[in-house]
């Protein structure tokens, strides 16, 4: 506790750096994964190939990737860009499969109906398939977000500061409470971003909320609350 009283002033800095480092890989990874996922969903041949490839990317150990990128891309060893690029790769690897599943989750009947209405291909993808893939995309994005926030901490080992600093500093100085604080703050940050994504999803996809009018649901709920007469109405 003493440690916290003496060091709380450093928390906002590491918290915001951590947040800043997390957002870019999540956002870019999401955007890059969309076309990959669509291609994987649309063409049988690309599906196996693409998903295996991105799956392999995810198996590269993060520390190794942080260390390998600078010589590969000609970046300075201590640059934040190393961590950002590595985390984007992981985000794409995780997200591409979700995106493929998401496009696969679109009701083929609705897709056909869009074709029958006279939607051109691009407009159909943009205005029908993408929004309808939304709920499954969001589920995938939430996993990516939480995993990215956790992975950012590893960056501290290659000199990129974040809440991960408390892990290394705490273990070197043998202050378990400092490590514990870092873990809690990382988890809180992950939960906050996750919650924000859920709210964003609700705002953008009001149609995806569970229907109030499904007769079965209404009955089941009515039985629970004893308001059967109301449900019959």
């Amino acid at each position: 506790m003493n440690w916290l009283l003496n060091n709380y002033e450093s928390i906002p800095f590491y918290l915001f750096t951590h947040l800043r480092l997390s957002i870019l890989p999540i956002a870019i990874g999401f955007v890059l994964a969309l076309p990959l996922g669509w291609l994987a969903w649309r063409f049988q041949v690309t599906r196996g190939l693409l998903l295996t490839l991105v799956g392999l990317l995810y198996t590269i150990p993060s520390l190794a990737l942080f260390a390998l990128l600078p010589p590969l891309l000609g970046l300075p060893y201590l640059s934040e860009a190393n961590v950002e690029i590595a985390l984007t790769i992981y985000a794409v690897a995780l997200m591409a499969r979700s995106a493929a599943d998401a496009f696969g989750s679109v009701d083929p009947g609705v897709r056909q109906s869009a074709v029958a209405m006279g939607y051109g291909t691009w407009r159909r993808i943009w205005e029908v398939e993408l929004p309808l893939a939304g709920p499954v995309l969001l589920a995938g994005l939430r996993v990516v977000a939480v995993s990215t926030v956790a992975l950012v901490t590893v960056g501290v080992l290659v000199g990129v500061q974040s809440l991960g600093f408390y892990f290394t500093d705490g273990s070197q100085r043998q202050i378990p409470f400092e490590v514990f604080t870092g873990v809690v703050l990382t988890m809180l940050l992950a939960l906050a971003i996750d919650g924000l994504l859920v709210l964003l999803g609700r705002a953008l996809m009001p149609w995806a909320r569970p229907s109030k009018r499904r007769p079965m649901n209404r009955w089941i709920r009515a039985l629970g609350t004893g308001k059967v007469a109301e449900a019959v109405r």
Partner: protein
Amino acid sequence: MIEFREVSKRFADGTLAVDGFSLQIPPHSTTVLVGSSGSGKTTLLRMINRMVDPTEGTVEIDGEDIATVEPVKLRRRIGYVMQNSGLLPHRRVIDNIATVPRLTGVPKAAAHERALELMDVVGLDRSLARRYPNQLSGGQQQRVGVARGLAVDPNILLMDEPFGAVDPIVRAELQQEVLRLQRELGKTIVFVTHDIDEAFLLGDRIVLLETGGRIVQTGTAEEILAEPANDFVAEFVGAARGKRALHEERIGDRTVLVDGLGQPAGVLDSEGGSEAGG
């Protein structure tokens, strides 16, 4: 007029869904393609808006070979109503109805105004305009589907088993609605169903199909019932049995018509008509 000329369709997997099909569909009337699954009826319907392109033969609309028309443009001028309504679940009712006008560049306000009018036309309360499709009953969804099909006032309306998934009472209501709309609007409707009763009720002309899109018989309901082309047709329309095989029974001084299941179907009007009419 829609005309099929020697149309065949072989799918990529080798199935011959339609084999040498020819038919003229007259304008401003309802033509029903009826047959069991595998008869190619839906494939034929989808050839009219190029959802399916024939492997052989041509389809013409008013003398124009539609293979030369850009599919997206063609589809925007042909209404389409499908089973399970095919509504876009992420669009409100009003936006679903306005879909095609919006695609063709009609300003939003005008498209919405027209959509509200169409809700009146198909018997939907305007208060439902802001709902999402999953907040409507199956019957209401189908009405939205019909309104959407009519939104650009197309000459041709394709209906692909539109009422297959709703319960019998709602289906009967919707069928009456289609009859009423057709009396008012006089569209060229091509309607696909496997339900012979629905075909007899809605069709000015009925085209009975067998496997491979082979036409077994065309004609009005009366013609088909009176002279089924063969045993298959007689069996399919139930002319030989059940509720269409009526016979007379005398009860007192009245003649009652009884169907093949023993259910009384009605009283013959010819004798003592004034009394019966009450």
